[in-house]
């Protein structure tokens, strides 16, 4: 989960001015997302009418590709940047609304399975990334940041850990660049692997949620496979996000014990500060849906609102990815991140295949 660049780019001041500053970028997100929907609907028809062989490309991929094209050619003009940075805000609102599509019993059942898999994934990923960082001679705090970023939830986890362990800005910059670049690659590789292995929607969704680091990319990688896979990717990733506080706390204790970070005061307050609050919103909406607070038609409307919010997110994923900027951040952290991510993807795929056999997904 990446921390919000969202409204955060706008300095406090006149609320009306803050609102106006994000409007152009939000409109750009909406335009790119909607163009993705139009392309999905019309390119296939056009190709069929002209007897061309053309793969069916979903709106998710169109929106990401359009964003990538803009970001890596003409760039995102200054006037749009504050609004484009709101994509994380839409992601979180979309996740909360998605809660209406899950009955609480399903959340608890799926969440419990996910929690067990997430626990194994986090332990394995931290151990492996720590080993890799040492083998490549990376600075210990950079290794910690890469381990947290790949084990828990990408950029947000790195930012939270940087503050807690007092790592250098440069270290977290390297770690963020590596995680973002690898997240972009996962959008193209994960669906291919899933289709090659004929994974079910359930297995693929859980795998994406376990192995893709940023929440936006995990949701996109899931949605690129199918709607059902997208739902499960978000649920699994949300379970992973919920554990961020515990992992950051453990690292804070570790570095404080070495005298290289401040001691943690109240553990409960620390955990609450790091806990992603949108997870509570997701659970609350799910509880309301379970209690039949919404009619079937209303749940359909909330699900569509969630889709629109995700559409803005997917456009933002493409727009914020600039390969030139990412490539400037150094080869070693990227190499460690890439080797680690491939290993974690393989490890979590094995976990998911084993769980599929046990639970009959």
């Amino acid at each position, binding site marked *: 989960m*990446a*921390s*919000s*660049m*969202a*409204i*955060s*780019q*706008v*300095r*406090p001041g006149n*609320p009306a001015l*803050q609102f106006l500053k994000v409007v152009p970028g939000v409109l750009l997100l909406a335009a790119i997302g909607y163009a993705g929907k139009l392309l999905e609907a019309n390119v296939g028809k056009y190709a069929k009418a002209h007897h061309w062989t053309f793969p069916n490309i979903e709106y998710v991929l169109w929106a990401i590709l359009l964003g990538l094209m803009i970001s890596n050619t003409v760039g995102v003009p200054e006037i749009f*940047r504050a609004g484009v*940075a709101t994509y*994380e*805000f*839409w*992601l*979180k*609102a979309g996740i*909360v*609304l998605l809660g*209406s599509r899950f009955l609480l019993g399903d959340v608890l059942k799926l969440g419990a399975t996910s929690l067990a898999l997430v626990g194994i994934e986090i332990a394995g990923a931290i151990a492996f990334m720590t080993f890799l960082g040492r083998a490549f001679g990376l600075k210990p705090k950079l290794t910690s940041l890469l381990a947290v970023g790949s084990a828990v939830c990408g*950029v947000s986890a790195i*930012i939270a850990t940087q503050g807690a362990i007092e790592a250098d*800005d440069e270290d*977290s*910059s390297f770690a*963020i*660049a590596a995680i973002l670049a690898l997240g972009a690659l996962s959008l193209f590789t994960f669906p291919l692997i899933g289709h090659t292995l004929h994974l079910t929607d359930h297995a693929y969704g859980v795998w994406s949620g376990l192995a893709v680091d940023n929440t936006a990319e995990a949701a996109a990688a899931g949605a690129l496979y199918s709607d059902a896979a997208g739902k499960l990717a978000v649920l699994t990733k949300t379970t992973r996000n919920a554990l961020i506080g515990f992992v950051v706390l453990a690292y804070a204790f570790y570095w404080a014990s070495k005298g290289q970070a401040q001691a943690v005061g109240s553990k409960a307050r620390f955990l609450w500060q790091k806990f*992603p*609050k*949108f997870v*509570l*919103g997701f659970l*609350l*909406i799910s509880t*309301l849906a379970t209690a039949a*607070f*919404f009619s079937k*038609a*209303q749940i*359909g*409307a*909330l699900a*569509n*609102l969630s*889709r*629109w919010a995700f559409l803005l997110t997917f456009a933002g994923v493409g727009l*914020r990815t*600039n390969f030139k*900027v990412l490539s400037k951040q150094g080869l070693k952290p990227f190499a460690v991140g890439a080797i680690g991510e491939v290993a974690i993807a393989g490890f979590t795929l094995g976990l998911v295949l084993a769980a599929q056999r046990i639970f009959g997904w």
Partner: protein
Amino acid sequence: MSEQEQAVRSPVKPHGFSIDAWAVLLAFALAALVRVGVFKHIPW
């Protein structure tokens, strides 16, 4: 460091709320509007 990364690094909480809290508030406001019938049908 890119401008985007700098923005991530220095999150400003507008009006004392985190971005998470704003996202939850927006989602609940929309859910309330759907519940009371202001939005009856959301097309996709």
